[in-house]
Each structure stands twice: as C-alpha cells, then as structure tokens.
C-alpha cells in the first residue's frame, strides 16, 4: 500500500474524527459526571479562600 495524499486524507477524515470525538465526549462526560460536582465547587471556591488584599 502506498501512503499518498488520498490515504492520509481518508485516515484523517475517519479515524481522526472518531478519536477527536471520543476525547471531546470524554471531557464532556467528565465535566458533567454528577459526583464531580463537589470537587468543582471546591475548586471554584478555592481561589477565593486566599485573600491577598
């Protein structure tokens, strides 16, 4: 099999897309996972606890 422009484009348009979608949806699931809520609340408030002024 020769690796030419067509092969690479085909690869990018299929596996490239699939892998990116998986990573993106992974991130979305992580962000929306219910048990992560408390961790995020803590993180969001953590920067306010240290008072510099």
């Amino acid at each position, binding site marked *: 099999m020769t690796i030419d422009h067509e092969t690479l484009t085909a690869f990018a348009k299929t596996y490239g897309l699939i892998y990116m979608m998986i990573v993106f949806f992974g991130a979305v699931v992580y962000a929306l996972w219910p048990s992560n809520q408390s961790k995020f*609340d803590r993180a969001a408030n953590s920067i*306010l606890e*240290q008072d510099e002024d």
Partner: protein
Amino acid sequence: MISQLTKTERETALFLTALLTLSGLTLGLLGRNDLLGYHGALLAVAGMSLTFLLIKDYYKPEPDPDNRAKYYDDPIKVGLVLALVWAVIGMIVGDWVAWLLVFPEATFDAGWASFGRLRPVHTSGVIFGFGGNALIATSFHVMQRTSRARLADNISPWVVVVGFNLFCLMAATGYLMGITASKEYAEPEWYADIFLTIIWVVYLVLYLRTLARREEPHIYVANWYYLSFVIVVAMLHILNNLAIPISLGHAKSYSLFSGVQDAMIQWWYGHNAVAFFLTTGFLGMMYYYLPKRAGRPIFSYRLSIISFWGIVFLYMWAGSHHLHYTALPHWVQTLGMTFSIMLLVPSWASAGNALLTLNGAWGKVRDDATLRFMMVAAVFYGLSTFEGSFMAIRPVNSLSHYTDWTVGHVHSGALGWVAMITFGSIYTLTPWIWRKERMYSNKLIELHFWLALVGTMIYVFAMWNSGIIQGLMWRAYNTDGTLAYSFIDSVAAMKPYYVARAIGGLMFLAGAIVCAYNVWKTAKLPTVTEYTPDKPPLPARGRPSAAAQAAE
C-alpha cells in the same frame, strides 16, 4: 533582584549570561556582512550588560532563607512593567501607522518609516510585547496562587522574562531594518525563532514543574487555559517557522513549504495565534481575576471545562476561513467555515459564564472601574467572536475580506477584549504583588476606563463603516458591466474614517499611558501589608542555608 538569588543561583545565572554573550558574538561574527550582525551584537550587548549586573551584586549577602517560603513575585513585577512599556510603544506605533494611512507621504523618505516596516512593529509590539508579557506575568501569579506552591526554581522565570523580551526587541528592531520572514505575526527570522523556541520550552517546563508541586489536588481551570496557550503556541511557532536560511551568515530564510500549503500552514498558525495567544491565555486571566475581583466563584465551573475543550478542538480547524476563494481546495474552505460557526457556541459559553458570574454583583460593577474593565472585555469577547463566525461564512467574507471590516473585527477583539481584560487584571494584581492597600488613584482608573471604551467604540465603528463602504464600492457595477468606481475612489472615501480611527486610537493610547503612570505611582506608595498566606506555599528547592532545612 539579584540579592534574592543564592550563590549557586548567581553562578548559574552568570553561566547563562556568558552563554548569551557567546551566542551573540558567534551570530555577530557569522553575520558580519549582513543585517544579522546587528542582532548578534544586540544579544552580545544584552549578555554583557546582564553579566555586569550580576558581577556587581555577586558578593552581596545571600537572601534570608525565610524568603524561600514565600511566593516569588519579582519576575511578575518586571513582567508587568515590561508589558506596560510595550503597550505604550506598540500603541504609539499603532497610532502612527493610523496617521500614516491618513497622510501616506509622512515617511520622511526613510525606509524604516515606511508603512510596511512600522506596521509589524505595531502588531508584534502589542500582541507579543504587551499581550505576551502580560500573559507571562499573570501566569506566574496564577500558577503559584492556585497551586499554593512557589515557582519551581528561581532562575527559569528570569530566563523566560528576559529571553522573551529580547525576542520582542529583535523582532521590532529587525522590522525597522527590513528583516522579515514575510509571514504575518511570524515575521521574525530563523535565528530569532530558534531563540524563542528555547525560551518557550523553558516556560513550559517551569509551568509543569510548578503545577507538579501543587498543594491543591485539583488544577484550577485558569491553568488549563494558560497551559493550552503555552503548548499550542509552541506547536504553531515551530511548524510555521520551519525554514532554511540562505546561509548561517544571513538573516534571510525560505519556508520549507510553498504555494497553497505554505498559505494554509501560515493561516493555521495565524488563526490559532488568535485562538491560543489572544484568546485562551486571556480567558485564563479572566477565569482567575474576574472571580477574585468580584468576590464570587465562577458561575459554572462545569461550563468552563466544556467550553475549554470546545475551544481547543474547534479552533484548530478554523484557519482556512482566512483563505476563502483562493487556490485552497473548496472542501477545506468549507471545513474552516463550518468549524468557525460552531466555534460560536463555546465562545459565547465563556462570555456568558463571565457575565453570569457578575450577575448579582452589578452594584460592584457600577462602582468599581477595574471590574467594569473585565465586564466590558467579556462583552467585546462575545461581540468579536459573533462577528468572526459571521465573517467566516464564505459569501459574507467575499464582502469583508481585504477591507477595513477585518481591521475593525481585529480591534474589537484586540482593544475591547484582549486589552480590556489585561487592564482589569493589571489593576487587580498591581496592589497585591507590590503589597499596597490599593491602586494609587481610582479616579485615574475611571478616566482610563472611559478613554479606553470611547476610543474602542470610535475605532470599531469607523472601521465597520469604512470596511462596508469599501466592500460595496468594489462590487458596484454599471449597467454595462464595468466597475462603478476605480480603486482610488474607494481609497479617497476612506479618509474621514481613517482620521476618526486615528483619534479613537489616540484616546486608547492616552488611557494606556494613564495606566502606566498609575501603576508606577502605586509601586512608589509605602508598603502597608506584608502578605502572609494562611497556608504558606511549598518552597522552592535550593534552600540557601541549613537553618531553612531545619525549619522544614
């Protein structure tokens, strides 16, 4: 500054400045028959001056070991001051080129004063000099505070700040002499590019090492944004600048790519420079300083994560919208257009997240000009991304491309978003790191706010008008199918708008000068509070004495 370094650190620093001097001398010798020689000399002089400074203070007593248990803020101060210096330089040159478009003959017949050479001094000066220094300085602050760890060591922050500014200096002086790689926003030549690559790797490693030492289990979202800025800019910079110099003794190089591939790589770079230099880095700033200043946590932390990944994934594919109606394959243009439209979703999610954080604190926004800077920044972020997504639609782009509409879009993002969020963050950060109760003058912040807002409005409205008039004039036909206007007719029609833009720009510049003055006076105020965090930060390695180790 040097008195804050231990003996071994002073030695390391001396070694590095000697290396800089040596590299400068080598470059100078190799390029003695070329403009390259001047940049060799510049690096050598910089290296020698730094060596001299180090030797002068070499025998000063070592720092108090207790200092190592505090955050390391000296590089932040220097970075902030340099950001303001570049802001003033870059905007003076910006207004200069704005007047040059009104009076094109005002070049004194000198090469360096031509539009083509001054324009990149403006763009690099404001984007890299002002924006870059502000990003580096605030990232040093955010990474330490959110990790509750001191910067991982005391040398690499200086390598980053000094090295980055030497790069900016090479860029600006090179353009004036006529050195350019002819790629927009990537004009510096091969040797400066290699230099920046080294500096950038040091920056990335410093960031990762500091995060690795964090006391907080979760990495606060602002760091993600900053890190994407550091990592992607490295990627973009290396790929787009792959080039072969005509010889080691010449500044000129030629890109490894040619034709439409070169164009696509350039605009993949160009658009992602917008995305990861002018957007994600500044979003990092927003996600830290806006909640801090408002005293409220970010409206939705989840949304901030989702929009982060949305922005990262979508921006990468949008670059081809800069090449509509070119030799680029049609499907690639369509791809860029589609992704640009989708990009509106995470962009508005970020802008909305910022504004909803302020919901319930509107009283503060009314009274506090600093917070108002940040609010206006979020609004302009929303506006310019909406405009960008719209301009990326091919038929719309056929009207906007080559016109001042693009310049208007650029500055609604650059002035309204990038500069405003930076000024808001600077006013928040300055009293903290200089340990003052507050800024020198709140009246001056208020003055700056109105100068900046009115200046931006004048600038952007002038460019929208002139851009659309230009676009319409170029596509107006007579009944017999000939063009209704000659090109020069459209140039003449621009004149009033160019005058207006230059005046709006002058107001914006005046605001920046007011800011620099205010920061300067604040630094001179008596220090009132010695800030001791409840939980002391994790100290850096390389303790100066045994006493400190015992205390651990």
